[in-house]
């Protein structure tokens, strides 16, 4: 008899059968056994490489422990080794769906340190791109979340609209993602001819598209059953966990930095803050969808009211001189050379600059030691903080609801791990 056969025959099923018999006699108590399940990191429903250690009792989630760090790339450390204007491209890659917001938070912090004023036109151009980015981020969220709930066609519709936004980004900056459009002191270039018409066309079309998405999902019994009343969390608990953004607004707290503490001329625009009442998954969904309409409103107001003037500050110690000046002005050439080789020097100090990203408060902390490289860059990423709310949200819910909640949480792992 071979070694393998001997081993095979040595296994007895006796104890297992006895166990099973006991369980069937025990009735309901037999399902009290806890099961620890590893969920992710490579699972499409985790929206990246999030790993969850889930403790289940039957179908019911008893505990969730998020394990993160799978896409930690040390961007904060990398940023310390680059001059200020070279930090922008790496920092944009943190939360890869809201790159304009990452750049805005960083540029805002550096502008505060230098105490430079951003021209009005640049602020309006920033608002246009920020709000387009917010719509784009929400579209990716809507498409992938619907995918998690089993609605596949939604994904294609959302990405159709997202393409149009990326085309606009390509038009203004030459890049579709990680555009490096925002610079310290303004934006890198004015919008090209034809951009305004194309944007106007998109903004006119977008609300009817959101109508379609909303009707399609709101009229879907399966989506409603999966979202309505599942995994609610009250505003007080959310605040103690540091949760901001659409998740907090869904619970009825209208906290939005664009309204509460306007930056970048947001007080010039007329818009509403959509809020929910129950704080369940449906409210989280409805809040984000409603936000898309508001973003369209803000972007059209910014486009129609776009003031004339420079698109970047004229402070030559901060921004590059225009190309044509280099041929005639020695001083411009020197400034250009100093900025490109060494970069700008930033007065020593520490600043925390918060903005409202699609996921909540995105704060950038920059410490300068007076040199041309930042001594510390830290992003308070909303996904990182909001992730702590997963466990209180899903405890006691079904595992299927956990998937829906994770989708409505909208975590971006690039931002969480940085």
């Amino acid at each position, binding site marked *: 008899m071979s070694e393998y056969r001997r081993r095979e025959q040595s296994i007895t099923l006796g104890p297992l059968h006895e166990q099973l018999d006991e369980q069937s006699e025990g009735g309901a108590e037999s399902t009290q056994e806890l099961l620890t399940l590893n969920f992710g990191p490579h699972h499409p429903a985790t929206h990246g490489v999030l790993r969850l250690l889930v403790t289940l009792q039957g179908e019911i989630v008893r505990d969730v422990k998020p394990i993160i*760090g799978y896409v930690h790339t040390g961007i*904060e450390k990398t940023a310390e*080794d680059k001059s200020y204007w070279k930090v922008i491209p790496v920092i944009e890659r943190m939360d890869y769906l809201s790159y304009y917001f990452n750049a805005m938070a960083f540029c805002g912090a550096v502008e505060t340190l230098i105490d430079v004023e951003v021209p009005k036109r640049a602020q309006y151009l920033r608002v246009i791109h920020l709000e387009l980015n917010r719509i784009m981020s929400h579209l990716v969220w809507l498409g992938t979340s619907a995918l998690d709930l089993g609605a596949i066609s939604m994904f294609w519709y959302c990405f159709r609209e997202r393409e149009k936004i990326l085309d606009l980004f390509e038009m203004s900056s030459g890049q579709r993602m990680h555009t490096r459009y925002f610079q310290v002191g303004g934006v890198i270039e004015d919008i090209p001819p034809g951009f305004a018409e194309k944007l106007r066309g998109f903004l006119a079309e977008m609300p009817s598209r959101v109508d379609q998405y909303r009707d399609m999902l709101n009229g879907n019994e399966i989506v409603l059953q999966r979202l309505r009343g599942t995994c609610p969390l009250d505003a007080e608990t959310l*605040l103690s966990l*540091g949760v901001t953004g659409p998740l907090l607004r869904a619970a009825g707290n209208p906290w939005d930095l664009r309204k509460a503490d306007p930056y970048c001329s947001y007080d010039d625009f007329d818009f509403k803050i959509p809020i929910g009442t129950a704080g369940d998954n449906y409210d989280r969904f409805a809040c984000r969808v409603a936000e898309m309409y508001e973003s369209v409103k803000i972007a059209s107001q910014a486009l129609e009211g776009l003031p004339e003037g420079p698109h970047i500050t004229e402070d030559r110690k901060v921004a590059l001189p225009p190309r044509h000046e280099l041929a005639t002005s020695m001083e411009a050439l020197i400034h250009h050379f100093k900025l490109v080789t060494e970069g700008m020097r930033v007065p020593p100090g520490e600043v925390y600059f*918060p903005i409202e990203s699609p996921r909540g408060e995105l704060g950038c902390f920059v410490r300068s030691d007076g040199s041309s490289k930042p001594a510390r860059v830290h992003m*308070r990423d909303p996904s*990182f*903080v909001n992730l*702590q709310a997963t466990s209180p949200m899903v405890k006691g819910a079904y595992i299927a609801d956990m998937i829906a909640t994770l989708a409505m949480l909208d975590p971006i792992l690039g931002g969480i791990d940085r």
Partner: protein
Amino acid sequence: MPDATGLELIAGELRDAEGADVVTDTLFFRDRATLSVQPTHIRAVLAHLRTKGYTFLASLHGVDYYPHEPRLGVCYELLDMASVDRITVKLRVASDTPEVESVTEDWPTADHQEREVYDMFGVVFRGHRDLRRILMPEDYEGHPQRRDFPIGGEPVIFTFNERDALGSSE
């Protein structure tokens, strides 16, 4: 933001309530208020500020002031949502005894963020229930965000150099 006078008033109140040496410095820079406090009193200071309306801990992050001592810093960004007011509380600890009391009991949001500061700077938060590395691998040595931690220099392991990189255990 509290203005410069408001910041001094808060500092004065804290000195009266918690002891004269609690607030080591106040700074009003670019319309932003910062309180530097003794690390031993951080929980009391934050609890006091909470009664003043700063009920939301927006962010907690670490800073390395290398080569100055005390070297490591922790910043607490507090927010008063009702009057839209922010204040930063800072503390500094020496790198040979980097210990701070954890604030997770009063501010549950600090949980992940304290773990990140521990991971990146090696600041130990006393009383944190689950102080483990969060972003770096569990068996990682060193604290990468410290200023004297080199950028790069870590070998990438391929088949041809795995023996050298992992030692002779294989």
